[in-house]
C-alpha cells in the first residue's frame, strides 16, 4: 500500500476556555489520524471534551494548543472565510437535535449548504432530491420539520450533510434523541454510507453503537485514553494481529 496523507491529523491538540479569568481545559494533548473511508466512534463521559474536539475538527473552533491538519493543511493558517467555505464543501454536520430550519421544508433544508457553495437554484434542488432519495426521504421532500418524526428529521439532516459530497461527516450523538429501534436504523444508514467510502466520525454514549464502528476513540477529562480497532460485527477484512 502506498502511504497516503491522512484525511485529518491531530497533533497535541488542546483547547482551553477562559471565562472571567478561570481557565477550563476541555481537551488536552490529543493526537490521532483519521484516514479516508474510516468510520470512527468517539466515546467518553459527559464533559470529557467530545463536542469540543468535534467542533475543532469541523472548523467551527480552533485549538489553543497543537495543530489540526486537513489533507495536510494546518487549519489555523486558513482565513475565517476560507474555513467557512471548507465547511460548506468538505464537512457535513449531523447534530443530536437535528438542527433543521423550522421555517423551511425538507428539500430547502437539504439544499442549504449548496447556497454557500455558490450553486444555482435549479441544480440545488436537483441534488437535494438525489440526497433525499439516498436517505429514503424523497417522498417527504415538501414536509416541514414539525411534520416529521425525530428519525425522519435526522434522515433529512443526514441528506443535508451529504449533499456537497463532503470529505467527512461529523455526527454528534446522532441517535441520542431517538429510541433504540430508530437509532439502529440511523446507524445502519451511516454504515451503508461508510460502505460507499464515506468517512464518518461519530460521537456516541452507546457502547453497542460503538462496537459497530471499526475504530473507537476514548476520551476522559479531555485526554485520549484509548484508540482501539476492533473486529467489526460484519467483518470486511481480517485485522492483522
Amino acid at each position, binding site marked *: 500500500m502506498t502511504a497516503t496523507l491522512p484525511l485529518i491529523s491531530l497533533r497535541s491538540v488542546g483547547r482551553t476556555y477562559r471565562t472571567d479569568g478561570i481557565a477550563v481545559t476541555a481537551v488536552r494533548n490529543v493526537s490521532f489520524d483519521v484516514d479516508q473511508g474510516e468510520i470512527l466512534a468517539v466515546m467518553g463521559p459527559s464533559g470529557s471534551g467530545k463536542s469540543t474536539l468535534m*467542533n475543532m475538527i*469541523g472548523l*467551527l*473552533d480552533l485549538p489553543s494548543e497543537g495543530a489540526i491538519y486537513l489533507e495536510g493543511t494546518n487549519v489555523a493558517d486558513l482565513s*475565517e*472565510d476560507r474555513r*467557512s*467555505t*471548507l*465547511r*460548506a*464543501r468538505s*464537512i457535513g*454536520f449531523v*447534530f443530536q437535535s437535528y*438542527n433543521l*430550519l423550522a*421555517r*423551511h421544508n425538507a428539500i430547502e433544508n437539504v439544499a*442549504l*449548504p449548496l*447556497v*454557500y*457553495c*455558490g450553486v444555482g437554484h435549479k441544480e440545488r434542488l436537483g441534488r437535494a432530491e438525489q440526497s433525499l432519495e439516498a436517505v429514503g426521504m424523497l417522498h417527504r421532500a415538501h414536509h416541514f420539520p414539525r411534520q416529521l418524526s425525530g428519525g425522519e428529521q435526522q434522515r433529512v439532516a443526514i441528506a*443535508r450533510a451529504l449533499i*456537497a459530497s463532503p470529505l467527512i461527516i461529523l455526527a454528534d450523538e446522532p441517535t441520542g434523541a431517538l429510541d433504540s429501534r430508530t437509532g439502529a436504523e440511523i446507524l445502519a444508514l451511516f454504515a451503508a454510507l461508510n460502505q460507499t467510502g464515506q468517512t464518518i466520525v461519530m460521537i456516541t454514549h452507546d457502547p453497542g453503537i460503538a462496537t459497530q464502528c471499526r475504530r473507537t476513540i476514548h476520551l476522559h477529562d479531555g485526554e485520549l485514553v484509548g484508540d482501539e480497532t476492533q473486529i467489526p460485527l460484519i467483518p470486511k477484512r481480517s485485522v492483522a494481529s
Partner: protein
Amino acid sequence: MTMLQGFQIALHALRLNPLRSFLTMLGIVIGVASIVTVFAIGAGAQLRLQEQIRSIGANVLMITPGAVYQGGVRLKDGSKLTMTESDVQAILEQIPEIQAAAGSIAGTAQVIHEGKNWNTTINGTTTGHFMVRDWQLSSGRYFSSAEEAAAGKVVILGSTVARELFAPDADPIGAQIRIMKVPLEVVGVLDRKGPAQDDVAFVPLTTAKLRFLGSASNINRDSVAYIIAKVAADGQMAGARSEIEGLLRQRHRVPAGQEDDFKVQDPAAAMEAQQGAIRTVALLLVAIASVSLLVGGISIMNVMIVSVTERTREIGIRRALGGRMRDIRLQFLCEALVLCLLGGAIGVLSGVTLSMTVARMAGWITSIDSEAIALALAFSIATGLIFGFYPAHKASKLSPIEALKTE
C-alpha cells in the same frame, strides 16, 4: 451567497410574519408618503403662483382703494371706490414711465348662449387692460374706440368661457350671447393664460357701468374698482410707484400725515415673496416627515435586533453549514433593505394617491415629479442600510458554537 439569494431569503423570512413586517415598515411608509405628498402639494402651490405671476404680466403695478375716513372713523380698505377714470388718464399723461394703464370694475354673472349657461367674472375695462397684461387674442379683435365711448354691446371672452358656451368646432366671433338680459356680440376670444385667469368675460368699461351697474347708487359714474398700469422697464418700478403715489395723493387731496386712500402694489413681487414663504414651509414639512423616516428606521433596527436574537440558532446552523460572516451580514442587511424598499414603495403609492385626493377634494394643484419619488426611495434605501447595518453586523459576529447552543 449573492445579493439575489440574500433578497430571496429575506422575502421568505418576511412572508412568514406579514403583520409584523408590515408594522415594522409602517414608519417608513408614513415618512415616505408624507415626503411625497408635501413635495407634490408644495410643487403644485409653486406652479400655481408662477402661473399667476405670469398671468399678471411683467412690470405691472396695481392700484386698489385704501383706507377711507368718514367722520374721523377709518373704514375697511376698499370699502369705497376711490379711484376714477380721470386718475387713469392722469397717470397715463403725467408719468412718462407708464406705457399703458386701464381701470376695471368687476362682478360675477351668468353668461348665456343658446341654452348653455356659465357663471363667470364680468370685467368692465378698456383695451389698455390687455396691453398692460400682454394678453393676445386667439381670434377676433379688441374693443374699438367707438365701442368704448358709446357703451357698445360687445364682449371679449376668456378661453374657458368660450369653451363652455360654444361647441369645439363653432366660431364664437360674431355670435350673440346674453349677460343679465343684455345681448352682446362676441368680438374676440383671448389666448389661454392659465386656468384661474381664463374664466372671465370682458366688456367695455362704459358698457359695464351703463348696462350692468347702472342702477347701483353707491357708484360714482367716473369711479373704477382698480387700476393696472404697465411700467416700461424693470428698473423703473420703484420710481413709477412713488410717482403714482405722489400724483394720486395730490389728486385725491390727501392731507399730509393721513393715510392714502389707495394702495399701489407690485403683485409679481408680492407673489415672489409668497413663493419664498411656500418653499420655507415645504422644507419645514419635509424636515418633519424626515423625522418620521428616522423613527421608521429606528423601529426597523429594533425589530431586526429582536429578530437576530430570536434567530440565533438559525444563524448558528447557517454558519455550521458554511455561511461566511459576510453571508450572514448580507442576509440581514437584505431583510432591512427589503423592509425599507417595500415600505418606500407603499409610501410612494400612498403619497401619490393622497396628493391626488387632496388635489381633487380641495381643488389644489399638485405636481408629482419623478425626482421627489426617486429622492424618497433613495432616502428609504439609505435608512435600510444605516439602520440595518448594526443588527446585521451583530448577527455576523455571533460565535457559531454559542449560537448552536441556544434554544
